[in-house]
């Protein structure tokens, strides 16, 4: 057991640090949830890609460096320690790409991965629907067979980044009336500017259009933009939640850097005699270190050929709750200035509030932890076949 960095890893760290020092903009770009900021962040993605720093763990042929998870962790530490901008391309890189690597065709990989890595194509998610949130499998948006492809109809919502993004990926019902709701779904990629697509941005809590509703009216999608077999979408979408996706959605480097900034602010503004605040700042440091080491253990398990499965739910609950606590502490350190809404901590706070909701609510994650890791009995659906949903919720 060791946490040692090899000589090669140290060289990699030094290279990343050197590049970031030379290229990270001195002035942070505008919020990526604004049109101006989105464009600035897209330009930054192109800059990263040009020197092969946007997707270090991808194969070289798609613009990466083909490095392992350990080096990815090192890069992320350096990235956030350097104060580099948030990643506007994260949906494509962390959510779509792992699915394409596992289930996409060679043609799809070659066509889609490089522009995803360069920021030329920014992806939005199209999972939730007005009546399908945590119960995602009950979704009703349709994919109907047509000549050479599919016609999409229906409504998607809470589609992150969709206000300014280029394309979207999600699940559509291609076989209506299957006995189980998660059967007969198809994983589709589509153009947000295609005929029949209407994007209506939704203002999040601070007014910025961080997500959108999508209205789809017979939107044509060619067969080449279906991932895997039609009807297998649920299995395909879920298969990547437990592998790298569970590990790479939020990197430890991001929280190590945030905890570091918090300690600096605490030293500058609060006295050590305020032990209540001191303990919360210490918890931010402890949490970042715990999350970092937890991720190191998982990376080691991958390297040893294991997979993590339902344990990715532990990961998700931890970082999302941690992120809010960290930002709450930061706002408390700011005192009356915490109310002023245009600072980094305040924007980070608003962003953090969504963490326990998206990517599977923390209630769903806790159900997964309890049922799959602790082996507790399933309890979401009525146990007694005679007890219907209508019976449980009178009226």
């Amino acid at each position, binding site marked *: *057991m060791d946490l040692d*960095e090899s000589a090669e890893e140290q060289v990699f*760290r030094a290279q990343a640090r050197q590049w970031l020092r030379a290229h990270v903009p001195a002035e942070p770009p505008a919020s990526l949830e604004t049109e101006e900021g989105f464009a600035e962040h897209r330009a930054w993605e192109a800059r990263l890609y040009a020197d092969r720093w946007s997707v270090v763990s991808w194969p070289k042929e798609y613009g990466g460096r083909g490095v392992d998870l350990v080096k990815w962790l090192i890069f992320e530490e350096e990235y956030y320690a350097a104060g580099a901008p948030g990643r506007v391309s994260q949906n494509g890189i962390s959510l779509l790409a792992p699915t394409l690597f596992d289930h996409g065709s060679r043609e799809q990989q070659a066509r889609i991965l490089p522009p995803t890595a360069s920021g030329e194509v920014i992806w939005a998610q199209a999972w939730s629907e007005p009546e399908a949130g945590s119960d995602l499998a009950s979704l009703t948006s349709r994919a109907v067979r047509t000549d050479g492809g599919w016609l999409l109809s229906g409504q998607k919502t809470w589609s992150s980044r969709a206000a300014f993004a280029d394309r979207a990926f999600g699940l559509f019902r291609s076989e209506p009336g299957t006995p189980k709701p998660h059967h007969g779904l198809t994983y589709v990629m589509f153009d947000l500017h295609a005929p029949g697509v209407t994007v209506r941005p939704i203002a999040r809590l601070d007014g910025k259009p961080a997500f959108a509703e999508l209205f789809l009216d017979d939107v044509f999608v060619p067969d080449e933009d279906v991932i895997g077999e039609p009807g297998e979408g649920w299995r395909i979408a879920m298969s990547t939640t437990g592998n790298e996706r569970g590990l790479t959605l939020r990197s430890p480097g991001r929280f190590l850097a945030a905890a570091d900034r918090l300690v600096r602010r605490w030293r500058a503004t609060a006295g050590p005699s305020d032990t209540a605040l001191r303990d919360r700042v210490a918890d931010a440091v402890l949490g970042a270190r715990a999350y970092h080491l937890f991720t190191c253990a998982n990376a080691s398990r991958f390297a040893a050929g294991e997979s993590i499965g339902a344990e990715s739910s532990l990961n998700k*609950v931890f970082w999302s709750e941690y992120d809010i606590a960290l930002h709450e502490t930061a706002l408390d350190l700011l005192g009356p200035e915490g109310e002023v809404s245009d600072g980094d901590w305040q924007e980070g706070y608003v962003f953090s509030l969504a963490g326990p909701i998206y990517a599977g609510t923390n209630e769903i994650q806790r159900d997964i932890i309890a049922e799959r*890791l602790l*082996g507790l009995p*399933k309890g979401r659906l009525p146990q007694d076949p005679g007890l219907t949903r209508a019976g449980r919720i009178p009226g």
Partner: protein
Amino acid sequence: MRFLLDAEQAEFGRTLDRMLAAAGTPGVVRAWAAGDHGPGRALWSRIAEAGVFALAVPEAYDGVGPLPVELAVAYVELGRHAVPGPVVETAAAATLLGELPSVAKEWLPRIASGEAVVSLRLDEADAFCGPYALDADAADAVITVSGDELRLAPGHGPLQASADPARRLFRPLDGGELLASGPAVREAAAQAADRAAFLTAAQSLGVGLELLHRTVEYTKQRMQFGTPIGSFQAVKHRLADTLLALEFARPLLFGAALSTAPADIAAAKVTAGEAAYTAARTALQLHGAIGYTEELDLSLWLRKARPLRDAWGTPGACRARVLDAQVPGLQHAP
């Protein structure tokens, strides 16, 4: 980087687990709490035969250590089985005496073999050390440190009841034979305090894991409203949060085993201690009234969680140490 136990380390933990499970520790704990040390000393010998105390003793004194990763594995198991006695204090005494050659050769081989049970009271001025010598009445030696003087206590005061009756607290009497003195004593005592905090963290993690395990099993079997209470979301989510707390304490423990840095040990101590206490609260609540009884063996772990959280470094002292060591911009430099 390979932040995983190797096959041998994992097997060592499983072997200890099997041995302790077969030993029927609840009966041993209850006897120990009543002042009957016989079964506890017998168990102590078996733990020593399994090589646990030798892990804290250098080879020069008939040990195989110090091996912090293996020690963490072992003390998690000791916690999981609620093993009574000054297990932490004896290993920390090995760290202390090992730094002082004049006394090491007398005591360390006996600690490694399990022949010597040692209790310890380090300098009370240290925020990580308390005034009591745990289980002094069962110990072959009670070592005290005050300033830079290390002594063999001449005896101890009356039993002071602990919230955990299996933790028997005594104040060592002042004076006694001076075994060593000078700045080296102070330095060795600091290392011993760190070792004690580290091993208490491991013990806490084991206590928490067992509390969670017993509670999960109980909620799978306990029927109310015609269904196991473990199928209710309010119950599940509390158990999920408890697992979360324990599983994020584990990497801090092994991170501290690798670095042995005082701040990393403090991080492990506070996180494992709080996680075990969370597990105790969960266990008590989800067992309901039966969990509030002394008779149920669960009490042996329930009552241990909070004293361990506060022994050898309170949460406040640990958090202060974590922050004191945090140099912004350097914490994850290579």
